[in-house]
């Protein structure tokens, strides 16, 4: 059978229009050429909607099935809500644990950073005055400088430190306390800063040089009942120690002895119009009269 496409299309359009409520008569009238073919086909098709299963049977079936549908909704979406809640809870817990681990690692890295505490190995100095030599002296810059001029005495068990001025105070480590302030009392090897008594080693070479009102920075170990100094730094004055002798830079009337001249740049700059040429190691004046940026007053 050869079927024209426009007949097929006409049938399709007619079915749509009938489904929308138009009558067979009306829709066929628009296709007079195909009317004799369309009418019996449409009437045949329309026999179907006349035949239905009884509504009461269908309604009863729907009512019976409704309970199952409601139960399925509850099970499906209630379970989904629980999973969502669990998922969110796990997400928050995971985020919290991650944060905790991150903080822990960060703290460990900070703690692991080597503290700028001097060891028995002479530290390097950038200044030509780096008599970071084996000369048995220990020097305390009045303030932290960028050119540590610290040397050591081999006999010292604990060595002072000099911090660069730009550095912030050392972060506290477990069991370590940093105290900085004026010395309000000296009693033997015990000094008092802010009403805290700090015990220095009895043989600490700096002990004789410390005076009342000196600004001292002390890194100390906490004991159960006392605070014992590990390292001492005088902030407001340069002190050079040689054996049993020491020299302080805060008095213009007391020039540095020969063994302290290499550390007395600040004193020369402040107290003399011109520094003797031989005061510089190697006899040269490098122009670095005062490498530190402290206030030697």
């Amino acid at each position: 059978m050869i079927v024209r496409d426009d007949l097929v299309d006409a049938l399709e359009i007619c079915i749509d229009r009938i489904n929308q409520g138009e009558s067979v008569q009306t829709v066929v009238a628009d296709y007079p050429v195909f009317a004799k073919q369309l009418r019996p086909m449409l009437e045949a098709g329309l026999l179907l909607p006349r035949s239905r299963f009884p509504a009461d049977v269908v309604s009863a079936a729907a009512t019976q099935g409704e309970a199952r549908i409601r139960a399925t909704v509850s099970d499906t979406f209630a379970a989904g809500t629980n999973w969502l809640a669990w998922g969110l809870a796990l997400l928050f817990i995971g985020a919290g644990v991650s944060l905790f681990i991150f903080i822990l690692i960060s703290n460990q890295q900070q703690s692991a950073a080597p503290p700028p505490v001097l060891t028995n190995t002479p530290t390097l100095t950038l200044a030509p005055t780096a008599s970071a030599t084996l000369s048995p002296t220990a020097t305390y810059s009045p303030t932290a400088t960028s050119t540590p001029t610290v040397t050591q005495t081999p006999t010292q068990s604990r060595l002072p430190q000099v911090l660069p001025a730009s550095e912030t105070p050392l972060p506290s480590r477990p069991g370590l306390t940093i105290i900085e302030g004026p010395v309000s009392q000296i009693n033997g090897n015990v000094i008092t800063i802010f009403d805290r008594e700090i015990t220095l080693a009895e043989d600490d070479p700096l002990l004789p040089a410390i005076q009342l009102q000196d600004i001292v920075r002390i890194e100390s170990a906490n004991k159960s009942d006392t605070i014992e100094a590990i390292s001492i730094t005088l902030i407001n004055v340069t002190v050079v120690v040689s054996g049993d002798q020491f020299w302080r830079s805060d008095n213009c009337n007391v020039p540095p002895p020969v063994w302290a001249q290499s550390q007395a740049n600040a004193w020369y700059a402040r107290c003399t119009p011109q520094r003797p040429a031989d005061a510089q190691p190697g006899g040269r004046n490098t122009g670095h009269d005062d490498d530190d940026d402290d206030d030697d007053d």
Partner: protein
Amino acid sequence: MIVLVLPDITTDEETLARARTGDEEAIVAIYHRYYDPIYQFCRLRVGDPLAAQDLTSEVFVRFIKAMKRETAPRTSLRGWIFRVARNLIYDHYGREAELPIDTIDQWLSSDIETDPEVQALQSIQVERARRAISMLAPSQQEVLLLRFDQQLSLQETAEIMGKQVNAIKALQFRAVNTLRQILRDMDVEEPTS
């Protein structure tokens, strides 16, 4: 003649949006709206009333789970539900299952007619329709059910049956034309007048 009231699309979308959030009343509303056409569709295909009831419920259970997985349709809910029903029928009864005669025998004329003569005439016509439809190929039966009985669009019918629109259009033509020829042959063999 019964006139099916097609679901309002706007209402469908609103209800569907609520149903997607797990709104039980919205889902139950969709269930009641589509239960009748889906049950009729299943019942015609499988014959057994209880099996049709189970299949229809299973269609809506799958719909609910699809809503949860967000794989449910956002538009053309009617086409989606019919497609699920059809797939379920195929899973249980095979693709080539013909409409069971005993099922067709349970069809009832929906027209409320008080005139006994008209009632008798309708009864004869329904009987003819039953016999004629049962003689069609399964795909032809299906396209007629979807287009005339369920009043689905050509596009929806194509989606449900998994065919191109032009193929459905041609299938529909062959089905209607074959049905007409069968009815004409019946008239020749058993004149009703």
